[in-house]
C-alpha cells in the first residue's frame, strides 16, 4: 500500500489490515446475498414495469417518459441494453441496480480506507451499506436511485487512485463516472463540486516541502476532466432524443423543462411533511413505501380487490446506522479541523454538499433521494463509532453495536422485499403504519392482504 501512503498526509503511519480483502469479500458476499434473495419471486411494481416501458420508448422512439421523463436518460439506455441482452426478466430489468448496489459495498470500503487511512471504519461503513434497508430496497428495484450511490463512489475511488498514481487516466475515469452519475440524476453534481473543490484546494494547500509546481496546468486538467467530460457524457445520453430532429437550442429548452418539472414535482400531492421532509431523515427512523396491487400468480387475490393482491415494499431506515449521522459529521469536522486531517474534512464536505441542497428544498423529497447521501453518512458514522471504540477494551462495544444493528436489520428485511403482509405480527404493524402515515387513505383491508383501492384495480 505504498501508493496509499503517498496520497495523504503522513501524520500517522497507515497500517493496512492483512485481512482487509478477505473481510471485504465476505461483506460483499453478504451484500449480494441480501440483494438477490427472493428477488426472482419479488412482485414487479408498477415503477419496475414502467422503467422497462420507458427504456424501450427512449431507445426506439427517442422520447423521454412516459414515466419520470424529467430525469436524465442513462437508466433508459442501460436498461434497454440489458433487456436486449438478457431478456425482460429480473436481470434484464434490475440487473444494473443489483450490480451497482452490490459494487457500492466494496467501493465504500476502498474509498473509506483512503479517507480515514484506516481499514476498520472503511469495512464498518461497507457492512452498514450491505445490510441497510434503503440500500437493499433500491438495489432490488429497477428505478435508478441506487446509481446515485454507485457512480459518485466509483468516481471518488478513481480520483483517489489519480492522486496515488499521478496518472490522469484515473481522473478521466472519475470524470466519466461523475458524468454517468449526473446522467442518472442531477443530484450527483453536488459530490462532483465537492470533489473538484477538494482537488483544487490540494494544489494550493500549505505543505512542508517546496511549493508544488504546475498548479495551473493541473487545474486546467481538473476543469477538463471534472467539468467538460461529465457534461459531454451527460449530453451524449441524449443521443436518441437528438435523433428525433432536435438541435442544441431545443436541448437547452428541454433541460429547462426538466428542471422546472423536477423543481415543482408534486404529482402525488404529498406535502413536505413526515418522511418527505429531508430535514428529519437523520433525526428519526424514516420510510420509503411503495404499495400497489398485482394479479397473483395462479390467482389467490380476494374478490374485494378485483382478484388482485396488495403488496407493500417498505424500507425503514436502521436507527443504529442513520441516527448517529449528524453527530458523526460534526465529529468529522471537529477532528479534521483540530488535527488538520484532510480525510474527515473532505468527507464532511461531501456529506454537506450532497445533503444540504436536498434538506433545504422547497418541495417534498422522497427518501429514495437519500441514496445519494447515505454512503457519506455511513462513512461518517462508521468513523465516529470506530474512533469512540479506539481502545482495544472498547472493541467489544463496537461488536455489540454491530450485532444490534444486524438484529434490527433482520425484521426490516421482509418488509423491504414485500413479504411484510404475509407475516402475522408484521402485518399488524404495517396496518398501523398505514393508519399513521396515510390517514384516511389507509387501505382498509390491508391486513387481509388486499383491498379494492389501488392502481391495478383501475384497469
Amino acid at each position, binding site marked *: 500500500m505504498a501508493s496509499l501512503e503517498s496520497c495523504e498526509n503522513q501524520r500517522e503511519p497507515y497500517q493496512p489490515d492483512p485481512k482487509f480483502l478477505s473481510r471485504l469479500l465476505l461483506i460483499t458476499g453478504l451484500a449480494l446475498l441480501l440483494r438477490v434473495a427472493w428477488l426472482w419471486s419479488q412482485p*414487479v411494481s*408498477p415503477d419496475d*414495469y*414502467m422503467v*422497462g*416501458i*420507458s427504456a*424501450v*420508448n427512449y431507445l*426506439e*422512439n*427517442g*422520447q423521454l*417518459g*412516459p414515466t419520470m*421523463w424529467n430525469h436524465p436518460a442513462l437508466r433508459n439506455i442501460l436498461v434497454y441494453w440489458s433487456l436486449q441482452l438478457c431478456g*425482460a*426478466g429480473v436481470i*434484464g430489468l434490475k440487473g444494473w441496480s443489483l450490480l451497482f448496489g452490490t459494487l457500492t459495498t466494496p467501493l465504500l470500503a476502498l474509498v473509506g480506507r483512503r479517507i480515514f487511512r484506516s481499514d476498520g471504519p472503511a469495512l464498518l461503513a461497507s457492512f452498514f451499506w450491505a445490510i441497510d434497508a434503503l440500500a437493499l430496497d433500491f438495489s432490488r428495484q429497477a428505478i435508478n436511485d441506487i446509481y446515485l450511490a454507485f457512480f459518485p463512489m466509483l468516481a471518488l475511488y478513481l480520483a483517489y487512485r489519480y492522486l496515488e*498514481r*499521478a*496518472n*490522469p*487516466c484515473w481522473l*478521466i475515469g472519475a470524470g466519466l463516472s461523475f458524468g454517468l452519475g449526473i446522467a442518472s440524476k442531477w443530484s450527483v453534481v453536488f459530490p462532483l463540486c465537492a470533489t473538484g473543490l477538494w482537488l483544487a484546494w490540494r494544489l494550493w494547500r500549505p505543505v512542508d516541502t517546496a511549493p508544488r*509546481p*504546475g498548479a*495551473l*496546468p*493541473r487545474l*486546467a*486538467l481538473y476543469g*477538463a*476532466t471534472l467539468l*467538460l*467530460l461529465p457534461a*459531454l457524457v451527460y*449530453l451524449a445520453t*441524449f*443521443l436518441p432524443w*437528438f*435523433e*428525433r*430532429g*432536435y*438541435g442544441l437550442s*431545443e436541448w437547452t*429548452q*428541454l433541460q429547462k*423543462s426538466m428542471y*422546472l*418539472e423536477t423543481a*415543482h414535482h408534486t404529482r402525488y400531492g404529498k406535502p413536505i411533511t413526515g418522511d418527505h421532509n429531508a430535514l428529519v431523515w437523520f433525526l428519526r427512523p424514516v420510510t420509503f413505501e411503495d404499495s400497489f*396491487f*398485482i*394479479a397473483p*400468480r395462479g390467482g389467490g387475490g380476494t374478490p374485494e380487490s378485483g382478484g388482485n393482491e396488495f403488496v407493500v415494499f417498505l424500507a425503514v431506515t436502521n436507527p443504529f446506522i442513520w441516527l448517529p449521522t449528524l453527530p458523526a459529521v460534526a465529529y468529522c469536522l471537529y477532528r479534521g479541523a483540530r488535527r488538520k486531517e484532510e480525510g474527515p474534512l473532505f468527507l464532511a464536505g461531501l456529506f454537506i454538499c450532497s445533503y444540504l441542497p436536498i434538506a433545504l428544498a422547497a418541495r417534498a423529497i422522497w427518501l429514495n433521494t437519500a441514496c445519494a447521501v447515505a454512503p457519506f453518512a455511513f462513512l461518517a458514522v462508521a468513523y465516529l463509532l470506530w474512533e469512540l471504540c479506539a481502545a482495544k477494551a472498547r472493541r467489544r462495544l463496537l461488536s455489540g453495536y454491530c450485532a444490534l444493528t444486524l438484529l434490527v436489520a433482520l425484521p426490516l428485511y421482509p418488509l423491504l422485499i414485500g413479504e411484510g403482509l404475509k407475516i402475522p405480527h408484521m402485518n399488524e404493524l404495517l396496518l398501523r403504519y398505514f393508519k399513521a402515515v396515510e390517514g384516511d387513505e389507509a387501505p382498509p383491508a390491508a391486513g387481509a392482504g388486499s383491498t379494492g383501492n389501488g*392502481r*391495478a384495480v383501475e*384497469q
Partner: protein
Amino acid sequence: MLSSSRSSLLIAALMVALSLSGVLALDRLGRAARSFGVCGPLASQAVSKVRVAQSVEAYRLWRARHYRGRTVLFLGANWPKVQPDGFIEPPAAREYPLKLDNYVATLEAQFLDSTTFLFMATQTGVARRIIAVLPETGFRNMMEGTRKAKHVELHNGYLLVPYMGYPRFFATLKDLVDPGEPVLVYLAADFFQECSAQQLYTRLKEASVASDQVVLCDQAGEATVSEAARRELDRFAQLIGAGGR
C-alpha cells in the same frame, strides 16, 4: 505516465476539442434527422397540397410520407387537448418475462383519432415541435388554462407550453413570424370562424411561411364547423392553388 504540466495541458486541450466536437456533432446529427419534401411558398406548384375530410387523415399522410423531426403549423379554432397520462397503465398481471411493448406503437394502434392526431405526431417523431395558431378567443383560453403549468413562457406573443419536454408554441395570426424552416401546415376549416381566407393567406405570406406539405381539413361530421367556414377553406385552397372538395 502523463504527469507533467505539458501533458496536463495537452489532455485539457484534447477534452475541450472533444467537447466542442461532441456538441457540434450532436447538433448536426439532430438537424440531419429532419426529413423534408420539396419545399416552397404555399402557393408554389411544387408544394404538395391535400384536402382531407378528417384530421386523422393528415396524420396518416404524414406517416405515409415519412416526415420526421418537423415543425407542424397547426391552424384551427380548437387546440385538440388530450390527457395522455392515463393512456397506458401497467397491467395487473406483471410476470417475468415482461411484455414490454413499444409505447408509441401501442398508443398509435389504440388511441389514434381526430383528437389525438397531433399528440401522436409528436410521439411518433413526425413533429418535434408544434406551432399552434389559434383565434384570439382560443389563445386567451389557452393563456388562462396554462397559468398554473410548471413551464410556461410568453415571448413576443408566442406562448410556450412544453409537454414532457417537447415544445408547443401557441400564438395568434397577428403575431405569427417566420418559423425558420419549412413546416407541415395543417389548416382546419374551423379556423375561418374569425378570419377570412384572404386574411390568412396574406398573413402567412407576410410571415414567409414555407412548406412541403399543406393539409386542408374539412372536419367532416363536426357539427361546430359551419358550412361558411368550409367555403372559406375552399377559397383558401384556390388562393394556394390546391384542388377543391
